[in-house]
């Protein structure tokens, strides 16, 4: 346990140098989205339809956007920083010359990502509460699925990044993976509006389960499946992603 916290400590120290910019953008991003889409576009939606699933569009959007923001934070922190540790700055290689193991590196990294996602989510909830998009209790509860969502992506993206030689694969991952998920996983509209064949695809993505769970906790409603099912899918994603990431680190760095 002691040794897995070492990488966490490193990341925390690096973050100390950049936290102002990071916290600032964590404020601004949800503010822009919630105002533009939630309030202005939401007005239009509410006038036409009288709201979605019994609530205003702003209230519908906020928890979905929280999960999607967590996904982006988890994936972002596990992409370039991981490749830099392997290839550019090589801080993982430096750490492996000490008693630390690849498992320590991956677990320490993911533990730090969990902290970062929790921080980003907490700021999101503050902004959303101030705009009347969430109740404080609902918002705070929804941080739990947000962190699970961030980690579900973090493990897989860490695995993926550790296979790469340069950043092109990461650019493509965000363009063709993360961005479509952001748009089509129930964040902005219910997935029942998708063509029939696409709906089961959404069931496979971790983001949709995160969105469902966050929305159900924020609004106090029942999700599509049970809360335990959605949480279980996310935990399974985290477990598999973590195991793959540790294996890939071993394969790449211990040669």
């Amino acid at each position: 346990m002691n040794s897995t916290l070492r990488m966490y400590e490193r990341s925390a120290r690096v973050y100390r140098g950049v936290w102002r910019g990071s916290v600032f953008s964590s404020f601004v991003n949800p503010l822009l989205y919630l105002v533009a889409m939630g309030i202005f576009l939401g007005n239009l939606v509410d006038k036409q339809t009288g709201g979605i699933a019994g609530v205003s569009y702003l209230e519908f959007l906020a928890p979905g956007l929280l999960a999607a923001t967590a996904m982006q934070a988890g994936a972002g922190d596990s992409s370039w920083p991981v490749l830099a540790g392997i290839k550019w700055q090589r801080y993982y290689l430096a750490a492996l010359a000490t008693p630390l193991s690849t498992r320590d590196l991956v677990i320490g990294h993911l533990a730090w990502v969990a902290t970062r996602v929790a921080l980003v989510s907490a700021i999101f909830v503050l902004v959303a509460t101030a705009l009347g998009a969430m109740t404080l209790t609902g918002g705070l509860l929804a941080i739990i699925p947000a962190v699970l969502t961030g980690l579900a992506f973090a493990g897989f993206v860490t695995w993926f990044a550790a296979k790469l030689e340069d950043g092109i694969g990461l650019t493509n991952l965000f363009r063709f993976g993360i961005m479509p998920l952001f748009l089509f996983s129930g964040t902005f509209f219910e997935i029942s509006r998708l063509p029939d064949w696409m709906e089961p695809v959404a069931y496979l993505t971790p983001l949709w389960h995160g969105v469902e769970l966050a929305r159900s906790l924020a609004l106090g409603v029942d999700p599509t499946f049970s809360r335990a099912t959605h949480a279980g899918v996310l935990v399974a994603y985290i477990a598999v992603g973590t195991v793959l990431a540790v294996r890939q680190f071993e394969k790449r760095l211990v040669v």
Partner: protein
Amino acid sequence: MSDALVIAHDLTKRFGDFTAVDAIDFEVKQGEAFGFLGPNGAGKSSTMRMIGSVSPITSGSLSVLGLNPATQGPQLRSRLGVVPQEDSLDIELTVAENLMIYGRYFGLSRAVIRPRIEELLDFVQLNGKRDEKVDKLSGGMKRRLTIARSLINQPELLILDEPTTGLDPQARHVLWDRLYRLKQDGVTLIVTTHYMDEAEQLCDRLVVMDQARIVAEGTPSDLIVQHSTREVLEMRFPPGMQDENVARLSGLAERIEILPDRVLLYTPNADATSSEAQARGIRPVAQVSRRSSLEDVFLKLTGRSLVE
């Protein structure tokens, strides 16, 4: 036997079909500075990584500090210091933070690390840079910080993989001086290099590696005595004139080495050889007489120069 810190027997490292290290044997004794001299790609770094227990051995046996790298890696690494070939400092952190974080990797408490940071910064002459971001340091300073970092756990054995490659002569001399002091303090050093002057300066004993194998072993002076003459006469001829002059040199030296740009005559007395050549009417455009070096040993053993 009992005073050997590293014992390798038939040590082999393969990457797929490529054999990086081919059944080498060597022993590193307590307190000595042991060198691996050889050109790039000879297998030096692979050997270092196996000793550092970050790279599993393919076959043979290896014992480091009496431990087995395969099964006792973390325990072993906690007693080693490693200066890798390429810098791996945390460029976003300050000089002092780099040392703190690295000490923490070894599980040391902050209270133990703090005084060591000051000592080490003193030792590598970076006290003035304590709170500077690593990004802003020169190449020589980064190497010195890497050495300070490798000493944070007070290692018994320090492994340096091409510690001065890419540094200017002044920075190299500062580094050599620091390494010499460490040796005086009883730290065992293993150094790889493709610079013969570095090997001559630093190493008590060394092995010459070429194409994954050890081709010679001994102290720098032993190697020169065994594999070369006392002196060397280097001659340079006008372009296109080398071949006809070489034909007239035969019998002048114990051995003649023909390089693309010059001819090396191995002889016990370079000045005498030079006079004899002059008597034969041989007129090089330039000539130098000098002592034999490890470079000559390497040239004889492999037919190639070290730095190409």
